[in-house]
């Protein structure tokens, strides 16, 4: 209630700030990399004379600052770049494009005091982490394949779903509660090869921002996090070709200007060749197996004039797995985004996006008795409009809307007439997910900053089709047929977002936030591995939207002239309408899948500590999370709270990168976490000669603790203007820890009178080597 009051109060008090009348002018423009023309997202712009106020560039590198007329020293800075100081006379509105040069390695050791590096302290948003491809390039990963999603899991509050799984859990949320956006398009399955790699080729990625809570009002649709990934625009000055050759995959990317300084393109491709090793096998069964993925990222942008720029970006990726000719599984995402940036005025920036997103899979089974093809698809069409109004240096308003049309095709089974199965087409599920939002970034000099807003979402469940009602036993009690476009059910939800920071002094601040998120697409998963054929279902007459309310508080402090940054955040989250399913639920090819579900609630709370060293020869961070996540369902554990699978009490990650001279970069990461909560048997009995295990409670046991050390060394080759290259040597799981992938219980094969627990591990120590080049 208190939060609500604060919220209304702030809307009320903010209007005068917007209406203040004094002769003011605006300086606006785009900040870019001097060498490549790549726009810089989140660069800081301040006027030295008004150092408490300033702005940052938006996701297209655009900035706008408004100040009373006068002469100012404008300082533009961005991490890893040399700051630029520009003298301006603000006696009229100015358009001022800025280009920054990258810093040499030697220079990073020198502290540049003019640089505004304490953004983490002053900005009101909390629970936000940003990683650039540059930052992650030296961090070791499995098979030496740079991976933004894997690296992101080294941050506090973001937990890995385990070996061989790119799934991740944010602040106790489930893996499907993360909104993963690639140039604004939703990526439904962010994993390749059943979770061993993420779908994001780091060559194509510019940066990645993760919101663990307190997400701004322009984001919505998932409960626990937003992972906003931006693709490279491409070099608008020169053509370039780069790539990498690794043990299991190779990459190639090309970029260059379309018209110098006016437009550019970037294309990146990647393919794994694990299956080529299978081909070497003499075993005819093995060498016919297929196991590979490939993906392609492409992006182009063109500046029509000073006020208009268009972007076209796309992703296509595919995984192909096959066992001989008998069985095949292929799946992948395709996304396309067409964007139009328009500067209405110096202060009003607009972006309009048309987005297409598709995820589908096909299973083929060919045997003597069965020829079956099963396919399933999710297809989104999106129109999105985002407007940013830079009212003045202290006020910024974001507002806009989005219209998403979802088509979920849960399954088409095409079986030959001699198959044991019938052909079947499950009815498509159609829905509209629409939202409008407004948010206000407000600076109250000298101490306060606010970012608050409202998002209103309307989810329409649409016909055509039969919609069923069920009794508690799951029997159909009523069937209603709806025609095309008819609204079956509408869910309206108001999602308040509120964050505030209070600057205690120059180096420390306190922040608080409250966020409500609503989720209308739900993933039903019934295995511990990431199964690409897991089923997405929309909210419906039976399935209510999931709702999460999160409150968080944080303390932030920078040390040694911002060389170190420290943060401590606590959060508490309540989740409603969580979904589980009944024992033995039939989730596949089931028209009545909603009758198989159970609905409950969840709660998650935790404490995250983070200390990061930003500069010097040694950089890196240490993150620690203490947390608990519990769920409650009628019909499970007698209706009392039980730990969720992702409940990991302690979670530690240590990342260190050491610049050893000009040629070598050494790095190491170490992770530790309490084992996942699991259900183990407490007894056993016999049914028809088979040993059956007896269970007493859900998730009452723990997997063994997980820990692992990874090492990497990068050797920079001779760097000329025309050509540069590097070798990366890495060792995954350096001390060969056999972490548990699964623990199963079985009869002892050597002693029929005994049962035993068997632990499977995926990866021992894995060395790898990658060669990267660029010319």
């Amino acid at each position, binding site marked *: 209630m208190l939060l609500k009051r604060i919220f209304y109060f702030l809307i009320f008090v903010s209007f005068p700030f917007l209406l203040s009348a004094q002769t003011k002018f605006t300086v606006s423009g785009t900040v870019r990399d001097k060498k490549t023309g790549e726009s810089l997202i989140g660069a800081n712009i301040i006027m030295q004379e008004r150092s408490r106020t300033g702005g940052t560039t938006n996701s297209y590198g655009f900035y706008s600052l408004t100040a009373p007329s006068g002469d100012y020293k404008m300082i533009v800075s961005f991490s890893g770049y040399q700051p630029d100081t520009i003298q301006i006379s603000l006696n009229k509105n100015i358009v001022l494009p800025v280009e920054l040069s990258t810093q040499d390695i030697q220079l990073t050791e020198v502290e540049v005091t003019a640089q505004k590096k304490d953004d983490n302290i002053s900005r009101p948003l909390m629970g936000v982490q940003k990683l650039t491809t540059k930052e992650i390039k030296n961090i070791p990963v499995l098979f030496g394949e740079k991976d933004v999603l894997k690296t992101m899991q080294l941050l506090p509050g973001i937990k890995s779903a385990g070996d*061989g799984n790119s799934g991740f859990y944010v602040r106790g949320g489930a893996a499907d509660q993360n909104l993963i956006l690639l140039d604004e398009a939703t990526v439904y399955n962010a994993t390749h090869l059943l979770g*061993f790699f993420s779908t994001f080729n780091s060559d194509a990625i510019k940066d990645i921002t993760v919101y663990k809570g307190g997400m701004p009002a322009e984001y919505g649709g998932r409960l626990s996090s937003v992972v906003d990934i931006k693709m490279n625009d491409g070099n608008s000055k020169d053509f370039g070709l780069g790539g990498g050759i690794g043990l299991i995959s190779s990459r190639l990317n090309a970029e260059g200007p379309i018209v110098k300084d006016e437009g550019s393109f970037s294309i990146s491709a990647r393919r794994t060749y694990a299956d080529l090793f299978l081909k070497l096998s003499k075993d005819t*069964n093995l060498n016919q197996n297929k*196991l590979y993925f490939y993906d392609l990222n492409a992006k182009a942008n063109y500046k029509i004039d000073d006020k208009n720029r268009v972007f076209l970006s796309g992703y296509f990726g595919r995984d192909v797995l096959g*066992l*001989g000719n*008998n*069985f095949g*599984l292929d799946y992948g995402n395709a996304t396309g985004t067409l964007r139009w940036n328009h500067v209405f005025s110096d202060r009003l920036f607009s972006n309009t996006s048309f987005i297409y997103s598709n995820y589908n899979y096909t*299973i083929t089974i060919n*045997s*003597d*008795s069965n020829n*079956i093809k099963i396919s399933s698809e999710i297809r989104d069409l999106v129109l999105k409009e985002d407007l940013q109004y830079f009212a003045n240096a202290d006020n910024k308003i974001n507002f806009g809307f989005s219209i998403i049309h979802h088509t979920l095709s849960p399954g088409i089974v095409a079986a030959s007439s001699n198959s*044991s*199965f*019938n052909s*079947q087409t499950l009815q498509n599920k159609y829905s509209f997910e629409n939202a409008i939002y407004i948010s206000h970034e407000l600076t109250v000099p000298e101490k306060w900053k606010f970012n608050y807003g409202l998002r209103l979402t309307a989810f329409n469940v649409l016909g055509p089709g039969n919609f069923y009602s069920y009794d508690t036993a799951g029997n159909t009690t009523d069937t209603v047929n709806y025609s095309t476009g008819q609204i079956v059910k509408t869910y309206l939800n108001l999602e308040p977002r509120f964050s505030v920071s209070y600057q205690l002094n120059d180096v420390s601040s306190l922040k608080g936030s409250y966020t409500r998120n609503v989720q209308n697409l739900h993933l039903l*998963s019934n*295995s*511990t*591995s990431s*199964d690409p054929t897991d089923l997405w279902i929309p909210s419906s007459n039976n399935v209510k939207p999931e709702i999460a309310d999160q409150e968080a508080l944080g303390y932030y402090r920078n040390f040694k002239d911002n060389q170190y940054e420290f943060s401590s955040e606590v959060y508490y989250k309540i989740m409603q309408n969580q979904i*589980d399913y009944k*024992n*033995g639920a039939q989730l*596949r090819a089931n028209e009545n899948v909603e009758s198989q579900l159970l609905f409950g609630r969840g709660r998650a709370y935790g404490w995250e500590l983070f200390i990061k060293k930003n500069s010097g020869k040694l950089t890196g961070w240490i993150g620690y999370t203490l947390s608990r996540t519990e769920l409650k369902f009628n019909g499970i554990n007698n209706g009392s709270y039980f730990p969720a*699978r992702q409940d990991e009490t302690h979670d530690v990650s240590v990342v260190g990168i050491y610049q050893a001279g000009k040629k070598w970069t050494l790095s190491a990461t170490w992770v530790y976490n309490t084992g996942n909560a699991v*259900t*183990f*048997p*407490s*007894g*056993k*009995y*016999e*049914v028809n000669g088979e*040993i*059956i*295990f*007896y*269970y*007493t409670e859900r998730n*009452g*046991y723990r997997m063994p603790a997980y820990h692992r050390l990874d090492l990497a060394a990068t050797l920079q080759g001779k760097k000329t203007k025309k050509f540069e290259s590097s070798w990366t040597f890495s060792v995954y799981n350096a001390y060969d820890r*056999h972490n548990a992938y699964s*623990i*199963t*219980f079985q*009869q002892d094969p050597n002693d029929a*009178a*005994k049962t*035993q*627990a*068997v*632990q*499977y*591990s*995926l*990866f021992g120590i894995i060395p790898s080597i990658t060669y990267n080049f660029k010319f």
Partner: protein
Amino acid sequence: MKVWVQIIILAFILNFCQCKKVIQVNLNDTAPQLVIIGEVTSNPGPYTVTLSGTVNFSADNVFPPVSGAFITIKDSTKGLTDTLTEVTAGHYTTHILSGIPGDAYLLTVEVSGKIYSALSVMPQPVSLDSVTFIENGAFGTNLINPVVNFQDPAGIPNYYEFTETVNSRPINNIFIFDDRLSDGKYIRQPLFNDSAYIQTGNELVIGMYGIDENVFNYFNELQNATGNGFQTLAPANPSTNISNGALGYFSAHTVDDREVIAY
């Protein structure tokens, strides 16, 4: 189909699998629970009901029989009640009952002052047409698996359970099939078997049972809990048709056996 997806994932993971080891897990002890297994079949009786108890995981696989129970099975359709006799410890048999398709059978067990009951209806028989064999080479070794061939009757839900004996040794896998996605089809279903390698010339006995929906659900949940070699997300005790918290099941089912030589 689910099994197929799991098989490929498993095959994939095993490619990477570095190691498998037996570990010690400290599991809680639990008070013994009653396990009731009872059957009435379309074959002539007598039929057996077995009562035993659970033991702790760390104990030997010796399951204490539960004696001294008062057990009846009633053919509710005919109104005929048979009181069972304990022939050996924990094993109780019928005297006069005969299994007839379409009849409903009610099991009542009274032991230690508690009464447990279960109802099962014997489905109409579906006959096993033939047993053939396929060679399956998914894992780098060629495995021979039997295939059951039969015509599923259209328009009614049917549930099947299969048993397999190789050279007189019973295979303890759960083989079940339902016609939810196959109504009215001629079914050719391989019985994948991970615990026995069948060689050409082996003598097999394949049994096809027609079971009722509750018993199918029991075995389906049991199979999910055992996870086909996977760690199941949330294994649980299968829901049984026996009331009052006993484990196990009571099934009235048809039987069609076939003896074949593997080829």
